[in-house]
């Protein structure tokens, strides 16, 4: 480490002096550093506990949480029930869906080909 150049002898002695001792860490600074460490550790432990909780939950609970949890799923169920109810017993100002369904069924009897003409043609042949 030391240079051989004699001009640097005093400098090397000074640098040796500086190397010999690390500064003492003031007690207040050490306490602040350790308090920071404890706070970060507490944060890390909290995160790891939350991660562990999410991993240990059953599959149905994880699916439930995908939909926003029990309250959101409850709302979805109520909306579905209301839709079915409106479908079966509609208010007076709405058309009856059952009647509309029957109309659609009867309209399916439309003869796309004029079968009478076709039969007459085949008989003539």
């Amino acid at each position, binding site marked *: *480490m030391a*240079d051989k150049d004699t*001009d*640097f*002898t*005093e*400098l090397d*002695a*000074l*640098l040796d*002096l*500086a*190397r010999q*001792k*690390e*500064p*003492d*860490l*003031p007690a207040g*600074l*050490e306490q*602040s*550093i*350790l308090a*920071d*460490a*404890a706070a*970060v*550790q507490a944060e*890390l*432990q909290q995160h790891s506990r939350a991660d562990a909780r999410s991993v240990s939950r059953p599959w149905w609970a994880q699916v439930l949480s995908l939909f926003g949890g029990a309250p959101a799923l409850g709302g979805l169920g109520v909306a579905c029930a209301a839709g079915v109810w409106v479908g079966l017993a509609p208010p007076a100002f709405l058309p009856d869906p059952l009647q509309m369904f029957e109309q659609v069924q009867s309209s399916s009897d439309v003869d796309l080909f004029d079968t009478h003409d076709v039969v007459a043609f085949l008989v003539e042949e």
Partner: protein
Amino acid sequence: MSHSQTAPTDDALLVLFANGDPLAARELTRRLAPRALGVATRVLGDRAEAEDITQEVMMRLWRAAPEWQQGQAKVSTWLYRVVMNLCIDRKRRLKHGSVGIEDVPEPVDPALSAAEKLQEHSRWDALQAALMTLSDRQRQAVVLRHIEELSNPDIARIMDISVEAVESLTARGKRALAKALAGQREELGYG
């Protein structure tokens, strides 16, 4: 924690810290904080600023612990690098550069006589004053090489420069230090 040969490495202590071991924090603080404080004090010439930087760098270390890649970088190299970057930021913010060296308390050996203590004080002051005459980069390189005794490749990694640039900075820095101290041999008890 003991200092036997089986003492855990800094890397291992960081893993223990991330796993919640409070003793790991204490041991890392004991090992690394005085080094950070020493180098920041030498580079900035301001003890109060150096203490702030020491707390900041240790906080960054705690935050980095969960993501630390074992074996990829030495913790001490990472620490010095962050200290240097924080020192550069501080210097930029301090419009008038360094603060007087009287703000740097010297760790003087309590076993010395009053006269010896006085001389040690004056040597510390002289060295710090001479260090403060260097450019920021020279001072960083000289402190890391000749006081912290790091290797040139480690210093190159810390300062993000080539090994040749480190050699040049330390050589020129040391010459400048010698020149700054040349007239004080007798005052410092080397006459």
